[in-house]
């Protein structure tokens, strides 16, 4: 059990938990948090899994994760802007249940 594997597994767990939350919850904010969990999990898998394969510190994948983190925060911010507009317009924290579509 090396560090890379452990954190890869940690990433897998985070992805699973996040995915669960993303589907289970209807509250938009909770789903956004869940999305961030998936994101964090994915980043852990990216680095841990790659470094496990390469056997050394992999700077390329680390740089990519940096990019990923920035994109994720941009996504979160964009989501929050939309959600808060939605709160203000509808006074609701979730989307209407899908009708037959």
């Amino acid at each position, binding site marked *: 059990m090396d560090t890379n594997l452990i954190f890869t597994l940690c990433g897998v767990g985070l*992805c699973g938990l996040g995915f669960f939350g*993303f589907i289970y919850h209807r509250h*938009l904010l909770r*789903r956004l948090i869940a*999305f961030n969990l*998936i*994101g964090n999990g*994915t980043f852990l*898998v*990216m680095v841990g*899994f*790659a470094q*496990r*394969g*390469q056997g050394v510190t992999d700077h*390329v*994948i680390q740089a*990519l994760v940096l*990019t*990923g983190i920035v*994109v994720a925060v*941009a*996504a979160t911010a*964009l*989501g929050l802007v*939309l*959600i808060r*507009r*939605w709160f203000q*317009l*509808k006074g609701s924290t979730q*989307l*209407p249940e*899908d009708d037959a*579509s």
Partner: protein
Amino acid sequence: MNMILSPIPWLLVIPLAGATLTMLLPYHWRSAASVVGIFTQLMASVILWYQVTHYGPQFYAMADWQAPLGISLRADGLATLFVLMSSLVASACAFYAHHYLSLHKRANFWPLLWFLWASLNGIWLAADTFNLYVGLELLTFAAVGLVAFASDERSLEASIRYLYAALLGSMAYLLGVALLYGAQGTLAMDSLAETWQWGPTTQVAVTLILGGLLLKTAVFPLHTWLPPAHGGALTPVSALLSALVIKASFYILLRFWIEFQIYQFLPSLSQLLGALGAGAILWGGWMALRQTHLKMVVAYSTVAQIGYMTLMFPLLVAENSEASMLAYQGGILMLLAHAFAKAGMFLAAGNLIFCTGKPDLVSLAGMSRYRPLNIFAFGLAGVSLMGLPPSGGFNAKWMLLQSSFMSGQWWWIVVLLLGSLLSAAYIFRVFAYTYQETDALDTYKRPRLSLELIALSLSGISILLGFASLWPLEMISLPGPVMEALP
């Protein structure tokens, strides 16, 4: 070749610079700057087309670092065709938007459009899996922004739905890319294809990538976000989304499927994709038939048409190279015809809604009498979508039919034919409303002629494709990574 003469970087620099400029310039100058940009963009696309047809596929090492360390761009025939397609459709939608939107809306529209355009070109030309991820995110943000800026309740809801689906999709894609990188140690598509080794890791990676891209393409049953987003956005935006944006993720999927020869090793997955496509055709058609709002009919029609494109996957069979070639060409032709037809149809629908001032079908009564040009534009697009001749849609359907015959998969024939009848049903249903005669006098608003002509010319291209199919087909059959990987 001299690097400065290559149009590839300009295809990215112009829209990115366009986005920056249009954010900074005063409102009144933004359109003018954009028009300049549009023309240079069209010119760059044509130069690229010339170079690719005359000198073969073009490769471009970004920052002069060769893949796999750096990021390469590739312009093979397929990519070039898509660059041309998006340039034409985006220009048409841009001119439409210029006349259609108010000054304030237009001011915000331009930078969003330029970002959208940059990301599309980036995706068509990309040859790096992570670069594709960033491109997809850029595309998603621009598209969500375009949906949201109609700024009413419906479009806001649609944009949230869209954003969530798209984010989940890209994350699944990224996870798949992470697994691929862990297994292969590279992100570049060419070196991935070279060192590809099937095993549990690659299989899971493919599944994740597939799932993510299917969600982003809105393939049935992951389509629920699409109709509200495409139906609720402003008209030129709807056209852009349906014609181009969903094609981006589909294009990536197609490249993966062929270049990594997934079709060869996971034929059952291909059949599953075909089944989803069949579901999309039937369900999308059925739902389009039940809508009461014009743009929702068109939006559900997109769901069904995505199904047609997806049908090409089970027809890419390793054992039969002729059938595979037909499926590949037919699928791309379908996609191309849909891009033009659907853009034309959305724009025509937008014009009609503008005329009547109401979004529902019932209000269309008398439109074919008072606004015949719009109905004609809508009809031409409809012909292609129904797959009736002469049109690009028909030729594409014909090729898919031939491919099904050749590979002995008769069940897709049934789906293709049933699907055409369904699409005929929902399109002629719209027509039936427009032909109803009322006593009402012509008190409807009249859109500018330029708006009508833009819709008409896009629809017209989808019809012309019926006579000029050979040209795009030769284009995508130019030697390149995709052609090498086909059986």
